């Protein structure tokens, strides 16, 4: 045993089968283990993102609403933004990692996964400048044809990054005004909401030429639009609540921003009883029935990001209340499946648990515990 054997030229990889163990380490099995694939996504396939209270690694769980089972998961870096193609073929994240856990060399990238195998089908380098903020769904958005991805940059100046998903490469940064969120209405057009209170229509061509057209101001300065509106890419409809429960509707399906008739979810009486909006994703929109779901509770002013125990269901057209759902617990985020018999997904960040309810009756169908450290976001393909 004396003497050090020449250390192999190509260093050890630390993943080889240990020579000193030999056969004991690899047994023949009665079972024949394989790596599973998730089923083809349907309208009830959802992804739950755990930003883990600003931790440098995040988890993105694939959940089947029909069974309440976790189908798989992918890893993201710091404040990774999830996205999912409307045709269900892929999903992905815009992510940020560092060479030494939370310091050293920063690397931003887009990772795209096959929605069944969860294998990486694209890993696209982007400039290290995507906006690092609490996870809002509409800051990183695919174009309707799922061929391009748009991500927001806040500093050094407002820009939107264009990524060619199909050819797996970053294209360019587009200059935009001091505006936020990205709502595509076409494959070369998206809308943003600006500090001034307007909507900006941004059009870009193959050579990077950008045209910007802002609408008139459509909400008062003290009508604070929450950071996490509901948006249906397929319907071209933005449902944007304020802290106090006023709903602004912006229809971009025509390629122009058309403001629908805004309405208040809470009655004057409810307002007097301090009913207000509250949660991380407190609003969801069901395309088929044109119904809006809004998380609300009796609460003091400035508690707009805390959980709520009730969801108010309103008709987007008439603004009328249709029903009210009592969760009987604190819920931070909601979403709905877009099928004709929709499920209501209700996520408790504190309990790290997703509750799956029948959206019509409010009856609980499944609960999915242990979803990371602080899950907050729910997205779906069919949107």
């Amino acid at each position, binding site marked *: 045993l004396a003497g050090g054997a020449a250390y192999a030229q190509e260093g050890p990889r630390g993943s080889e089968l240990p020579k000193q163990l030999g056969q004991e380490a690899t047994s023949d099995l009665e079972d024949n283990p394989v790596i599973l694939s998730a089923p083809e996504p349907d309208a009830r396939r959802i992804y739950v993102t755990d930003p*883990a*209270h*600003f*931790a*440098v690694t995040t988890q993105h769980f694939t959940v089947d609403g029909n069974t309440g089972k976790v189908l798989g998961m992918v890893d993201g870096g*710091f*404040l990774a933004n999830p996205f999912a193609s409307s045709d269900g073929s892929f999903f992905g994240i815009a992510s*940020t990692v*560092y060479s030494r*856990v*939370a*310091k050293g060399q*920063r690397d931003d990238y887009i990772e795209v996964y096959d929605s069944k195998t969860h294998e990486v089908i694209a890993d696209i380098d982007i400039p290290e400048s995507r906006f*690092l*903020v*609490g996870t*809002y769904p509409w800051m990183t958005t695919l174009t309707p044809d799922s061929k391009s991805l748009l991500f927001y940059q*806040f*500093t050094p100046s407002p820009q939107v990054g264009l990524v060619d998903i199909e050819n797996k490469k970053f294209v360019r940064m587009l200059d935009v005004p*001091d*505006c*936020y969120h990205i709502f595509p209405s076409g494959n070369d057009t998206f809308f943003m*909401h*600006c*500090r001034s209170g307007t909507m900006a229509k941004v059009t870009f061509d193959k050579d990077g030429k950008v045209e910007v057209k802002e609408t008139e101001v459509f909400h008062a300065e003290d009508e*604070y*639009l*929450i*950071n996490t509106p509901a948006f249906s890419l397929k319907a071209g409809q933005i449902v944007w609540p304020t802290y106090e429960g006023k709903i602004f509707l912006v229809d971009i399906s025509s390629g122009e921003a058309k403001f629908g008739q805004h309405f208040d979810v809470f009655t004057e009486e409810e307002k007097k009883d301090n009913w207000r909006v*509250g949660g991380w994703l407190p609003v969801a929109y069901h395309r088929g029935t044109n119904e809006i779901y809004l998380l609300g*509770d*009796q*609460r*003091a*002013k*400035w*508690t*707009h*990001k*805390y*959980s*709520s125990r009730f969801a108010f269901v309103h008709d987007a057209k008439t603004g009328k209340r249709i029903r009210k759902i009592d969760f009987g617990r604190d819920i931070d985020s909601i979403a709905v499946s877009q099928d004709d018999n929709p499920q209501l997904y209700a996520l408790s*960040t*504190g309990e790290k648990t997703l509750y799956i309810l029948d959206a019509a009756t409010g009856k609980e169908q499944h609960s999915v515990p242990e979803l990371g*450290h*602080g899950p907050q976001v729910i997205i779906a393909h069919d949107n």
Partner: protein
Amino acid sequence: RGAHAAAGTREGWKPQDTDVTQCDYWRHCSIDGNICDCCGGSLTNCPPGTRLSPSSWIASCFNPGDNQSYLIAYRDCCGKNVCGRCGCLNTEGELPVYRPEFANDIIWCFGAEDDAMTYHCTISPIVGKA
């Protein structure tokens, strides 16, 4: 409190001015993250090995000790994974992201040394009377 950020309650903000490590300490009225005092820093200093951000979001916080309101310029201490201790989410006067200087979901490490942009914890220095 678990490592989970203890969000404030629907009853609303009821500040105290005796224990800086609690989420209801008056200066933390619009903090979103971890109190640096619990992470090796203090109310207004960053923990060892972090990077101090020169930029900040701001909020006006009422001090029950002297019945005055003060402008707090929350500075993030950056370049380390999140501290995980004394996690708080308060949103007194917190505005949406399109009013960024009042928005506390943003990683406010802009300008810190080494381009540090990972979030560790937050300190609550005073700018002056509100």
